[in-house]
C-alpha cells in the first residue's frame, strides 16, 4: 500500500509542475503587454519600466517562472492588476463558493445517476433501460448554460418558486445555512448535476451489466441467496469504480462551473474568471486557473488512493 501511495504521488509531481508551467505561460501567450490594462495610455517610459520591475516582467522567463512558482508554493499568487488586492485571497473565497454548489451537484448527480444506472443495468433491454440510456445521452448533450436559463424561466420566472440568481440576501460574505440562502444554491446545483448524472448512469449501467455476467452471481444464486443478497454483492463490486467516477466528476464540475455560474451570477470561480478575462487581469486569471487545475490534480490522486484502499487489485497495477 505504501509503495502504491508513493508511486501515485511521485507520478503526480511532474504533472503538477507541467500544470504550473502552463498557467505561468498563459500570461505570456496573451497578445500585447500584460501591463497595458493598468497603464494609462500616455504613461511615460519611466513609469512603464518601474511597473515592469514591480511585477517582475523585466527578468528572463525561466527566472520569472522560478520566482512565481516559489511564491505560489508559499500561497502568494501575486496581486490582481484590476483590484490591487492579493489574488490568493480572492481565489480562495471564490473556490469555497464554487465547492458548495459543485459538491451538492455531485451528490445529486451521483444519487440519481447510480439509481438510473442500477435500474438500467439490472433490466437490460427493458423500456426502463432505454429510458435511462436516453437520459444519459440527454445529460451529456445538453448545453448546460442553456439548461440553466430554462430552469430560471420555469422555476423563477413562470412558477416563482426559486430565486433566479445571486447568493442570497447577505451575499456570499454573510452566508448562512438558512432557506433564504440555500434556495439560491438549488437551481445552479440541479443544473450542474445533469452532466455527472448522465456519466455516472452510463458507468454504473455498464458496471452492473458486467458484474451480473460474472460467474460468482449464478454461484451465489445457486447457493440460495435471494435477490437482495445478490444485489448487495453487486453494489460492493460496483462501488469503487462508481465512487472514483464521482470524485473525478467533482473535479470537472469545479473547473467547468464557469458557464453555469455566469447564468446564475453565483459568486464563485467562474464569476472571478469572467472578471479576470474582461478586465484583462492576467495574474487573477493565472491564479484562478492554477488553483482549479491543482484541485483537479490533487483530487485525481485522492481518488486513485481511495480506489487502492477499497480495491486491492488496483494497487498491484
Amino acid at each position, binding site marked *: 500500500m505504501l509503495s502504491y501511495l508513493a508511486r501515485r504521488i511521485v507520478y503526480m509531481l*511532474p*504533472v*503538477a509542475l*507541467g*500544470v504550473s*508551467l*502552463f*498557467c505561468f505561460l*498563459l*500570461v505570456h*501567450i*496573451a*497578445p500585447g503587454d500584460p501591463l497595458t490594462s493598468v497603464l494609462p495610455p500616455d504613461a511615460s517610459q519611466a513609469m512603464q519600466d518601474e511597473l515592469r520591475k514591480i511585477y517582475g516582467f523585466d527578468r528572463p522567463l525561466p527566472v520569472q517562472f522560478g520566482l512565481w512558482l516559489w511564491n505560489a508554493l508559499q500561497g502568494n499568487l501575486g496581486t490582481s492588476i484590476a483590484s490591487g488586492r492579493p489574488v490568493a485571497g480572492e481565489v480562495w473565497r471564490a473556490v469555497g463558493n464554487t465547492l458548495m454548489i459543485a459538491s451538492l451537484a455531485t451528490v445529486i448527480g451521483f444519487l440519481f445517476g447510480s439509481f438510473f444506472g442500477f435500474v438500467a443495468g439490472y433490466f437490460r433491454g427493458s423500456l426502463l433501460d432505454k429510458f435511462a440510456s436516453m437520459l444519459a*445521452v*440527454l445529460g*451529456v*448533450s*445538453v*448545453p*448546460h*448554460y*442553456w*439548461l440553466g*436559463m*430554462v430552469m*430560471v*424561466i420555469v422555476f423563477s*420566472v*413562470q412558477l416563482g418558486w426559486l430565486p433566479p440568481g445571486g447568493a442570497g440576501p447577505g451575499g456570499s460574505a454573510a452566508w448562512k445555512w438558512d432557506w433564504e440562502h440555500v434556495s439560491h444554491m438549488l437551481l445552479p446545483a440541479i443544473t450542474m448535476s445533469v452532466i455527472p448524472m448522465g456519466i455516472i448512469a452510463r458507468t454504473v449501467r455498464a458496471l452492473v451489466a458486467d458484474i451480473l455476467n460474472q460467474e460468482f452471481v449464478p454461484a451465489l444464486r445457486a447457493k440460495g441467496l435471494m435477490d437482495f443478497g445478490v444485489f448487495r454483492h453487486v453494489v460492493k463490486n460496483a462501488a469503487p469504480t462508481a465512487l472514483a467516477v464521482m470524485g473525478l466528476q467533482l*473535479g*470537472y464540475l*469545479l*473547473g*467547468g462551473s*464557469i*458557464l453555469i455560474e*455566469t*447564468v446564475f451570477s453565483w459568486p464563485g470561480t467562474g464569476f472571478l*474568471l*469572467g472578471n*479576470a*478575462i*474582461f478586465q484583462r487581469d*492576467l495574474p487573477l*486569471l493565472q491564479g484562478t*486557473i492554477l488553483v*482549479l*487545475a491543482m484541485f*483537479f*490534480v490533487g483530487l*485525481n490522486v485522492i481518488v486513485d488512493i481511495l480506489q487502492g484502499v477499497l480495491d486491492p487489485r488496483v494497487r498491484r497495477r
Partner: protein
Amino acid sequence: MTAVTGLDVPKTAVAVPPLLKSPGYWSGVWRRFKRDKVAVAAGIVVLLIVLMAIFADYLAPADPTRSSMLRRLRPIGTPGYPLGADELGRDMLSRLIYGARLSLFMGVAPVFIAFVFGSVIGIAAGFFGGRFNTVVMRTVDVFYAFPSVLLAIALSGALGAGIFNSILSLTIVFIPQIARIAESVTTQVRSADYVEAARASGAGSGTIIKVHVLGNVLGPIFVYATSLISVSMILASGLSFLGLGTKPPTPEWGLMLNTLRTAIYVQPWVAALPGVAIFITSISFNLLSDGLRSAMDVKG
C-alpha cells in the same frame, strides 16, 4: 466431342467458378448502420442542419441583421416572425438559420484540425515508442489535468475574443484527447502478430505505418473524434455565450443566447430558442457518433 483419355480431365471440371468478391468492410458498416434507426435519424438531422447552413441565403425569410425598433421581442407565431423577434427586432427564424453557419463551423473545425494533428502525434508516439512516447504522453497528461471547459476558457481568455482564437483554443483542448486515443490504439496494433510478420519479411517503417497501422487505427480514432463534435459544439457556443467568440451582430447560437439573456422576463421562450438549436445539433452528433461506433465495431 473430345475424347477423354487417362489423365486428361475435362476443362470444365477444373474451372473454378469466378471468385465472389467478398463484401468489404465498409459495406458491412453501412449495412449495420442502416439497421440502427436512431443513428439514421440522427444522421438525417445532421445532414439537414448542414444543408440549412449551406443554403441559408435561400431558406431564410428575412435579412438576419435587419433590425426594427418597433418590433422588439415579439412572441413565437407573430405574423411575419414565425419564431418571434429578438431584442433588436430581428427575425429569429432567419437568425437561427444563418447562425447554423458559424455555430457548425466553430464546433466542427476544432475537432477536424485536432483529428489531423492529434492522430499524427499519437500514431507517431505509439509507433516509435521509447523516449519520444514518454515526452508526448507526459505532455498529454498535463493537458488532461485541466477539465476541458476550464482549459478552453483559460486559453481563449488569455488569447482574447474572436472566432480564430476560439477555434485555436478548442483545437488545443482536443489535440491531447485525440493523441491519447491514437497512441493507445497504435500501441496495440504495433505489437500485433501481422505487424511482426510484416517486419520479419522485411517491410520498412513507412510501409508498415501506411499498410498496417493506418488502416487499423484511423477507424477508432475517427469514431472518437466524431464523439467530440457534440462537446465541441457546446463549448464553442459556450465561449460565444461568455463573449469570447464572435461579436454582434453576427448570428451565432451561443452569442444569440447571451444577448437574449436579459429577455427571459419578457419573451422567455424566444430567448431559449438558440439553445434548442445547439441542443438538437449536439444530441444528433452524439447519437450519430454512437451509431458509427457500433456499426464500425469499435470498442471502448
